[in-house]
């Protein structure tokens, strides 16, 4: 802060000092209120999204949504069968579970490598950099990658392809938290274990993982929450389906894709079901996030 002429003047002249003080105070107040307003705007958006979801979603949420497969629009005919989202819920659960099951061990190993073996090595730095880039990379490009790698050779969209695309998204999330949590472990603990004569791999798997367990679990939960709502890569890999299926070699439905298709269908009854799906996805994702936060806080 350089001293302005006004401030130099103020040192000598009491009236100028008063006016300068008022001006500074006023600037401070304006910025303060602007920041209150900015925070209010941010919270307003969250409130608007949640309120819209609850209001429109709850209206359509009934047992049919959970128990029926897709049905075409009823065109307002009350006798026509109403469809649900069972196919999408089942598909989402399967692909999210497999994606997490594939991505978690890889992410865990990479995080271990970065924290325990390669904190400063060139390869470690390269892996850390690439993992960070993948964390924010456009997910639709991962869809294009898996399309070339899996969908084309297998000759069609499949649940496997969708699960693999989700697994690629899981890895960097788990890497980040695993590395961070392992780095929080004091070296004295490692030295104590090694001092007892244990090999390094036992030190890591039996002691370090245990000490970092809640943190690592948080990372996995956040990764699950992230892929549960992921849409773009699935559009190019598992594509969507209208029936309940456990067949991973065929196109498979998922909640986000079902929401996307039904919300854009233009039929009011299908849009209503899309809102119910949106409420389910958001409630699930936010619930997992809150659990992850509580888990992490209980540690500190």
């Amino acid at each position: 802060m350089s001293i302005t002429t006004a401030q130099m003047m103020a040192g000598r002249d009491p009236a100028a000092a008063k006016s300068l003080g008022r001006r500074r105070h006023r600037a401070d107040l304006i910025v303060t209120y602007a920041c209150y307003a900015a925070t209010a705007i941010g919270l307003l958006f969250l409130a608007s999204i949640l309120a819209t979801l609850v209001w429109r979603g709850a209206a359509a949420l009934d047992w049919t949504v959970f128990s029926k497969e897709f049905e075409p629009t009823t065109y307002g005919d009350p006798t026509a069968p109403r469809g649900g989202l069972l196919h999408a819920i089942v598909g989402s659960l399967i692909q999210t579970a497999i994606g997490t099951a594939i991505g978690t061990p890889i992410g865990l190993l990479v995080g271990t490598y970065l924290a325990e073996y390669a904190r400063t090595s060139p390869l470690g730095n390269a892996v850390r950099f690439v993992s960070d880039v993948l964390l924010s990379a456009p997910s639709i490009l991962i869809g294009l990658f898996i399309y070339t790698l899996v969908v084309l050779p297998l000759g069609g969209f499949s649940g496997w392809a969708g699960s693999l695309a989700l697994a690629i998204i899981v890895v960097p999330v788990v890497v980040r938290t695993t590395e961070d949590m392992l780095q929080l472990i004091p070296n004295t603990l490692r030295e104590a274990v090694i001092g007892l004569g244990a090999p390094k791999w036992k030190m890591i798997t039996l002691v370090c993982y245990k000490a970092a367990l809640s943190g690592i679990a948080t990372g996995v939960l956040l990764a699950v929450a992230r892929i549960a709502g992921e849409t773009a890569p699935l559009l190019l890999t598992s594509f969507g389906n209208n029936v309940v299926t456990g067949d991973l070699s065929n196109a498979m439905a998922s909640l986000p894709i079902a929401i996307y298709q039904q919300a854009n269908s233009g039929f009011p009854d299908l849009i209503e079901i899309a809102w119910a799906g949106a409420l389910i996805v958001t409630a699930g994702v936010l619930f997992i996030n809150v659990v992850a936060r509580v888990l992490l806080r209980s540690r500190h």
Partner: protein
Amino acid sequence: MQAAGPPAVKTRRSTGSLGDIIFEWMCRGAGILVLLTLGGIILTLFLGGLQAFQAFGLSFLTSTDWNPVEGRESYGAFVAIFGTIVTSVLAIAFAVPVAFGVAFFLTELAPPWLKRPVGTAIELLAAVPSIIYGMWGLFVLVPFVQQNIQLAFGETLGAIPLVGFLFASNSFAGTSLFAAALVLAIMILPFIAATMRDVFDQVPPVYKESAYGLGATRWEVMKGVVLPYTRISVVGGIMLGLGRALGETMAVTFVIGNANRMATSLFDPSTTIASIVAMEFPESLNGSLKQSALFALGFLLFVISFVVLATSRYLLRSRLKA
């Protein structure tokens, strides 16, 4: 933390040395797999787009064509690149002031009991899936833009000579570049705000206390001490938000109108790289020129967002090490 490193341990050869070798190579192998994944993504996008790059050469970047009619096929990337950059930059312009306000509120202004709930709420905003933003955008934000903002802007700013055309549009659907930028701004707001809050919190209290001791107001401390101390990380946080905005797909696809033609006004429908790929790829034929053009677009998006994300990470490295 970075420099400390784990203890350099040489285990005795007899006990568990084989286990050590296996485990270390499993970890290293997983790390290499991550590198291969990125390499694979670059390679598939480039090879997939090769046909289009060869067919159109450099004019692929500048052409505004998007004509899938057989025999007259012609594809250009300019409309999508333009839409991507305009929506992302506008989103940053909308989001940064609000994010700064939120971060300033959370670090300096909020009473302690309010910090955690408000901070958590902002972080939850980041957890909401993009498809939900898209749906909310389509059914809540787009009608609002259409009925309130577009008309008001068109009547007032649209009359300004030279730049008025930016605000006057013949499209009254409400799905537009402007709506997409607004949704993106809301989506990246929590990322930028959280980064800013974290770096503001890292300013040594003693610096701030010195300034307060001299009689500085909170805004003067922010302007004169906190911002100069953190400005590189702040720019890094903004770049992170930009990287997110560039590649966002679903939220944009819902609200941008998906028109493959140049927009002359902020309220015209247009498209972005990510949303044109999402819209057109599932219905393109394998090996077709169109599919190759979409891969080529994906490659361009990768290059753009890689540069932005790498820059962001470089600027934030001091924060990562702290």
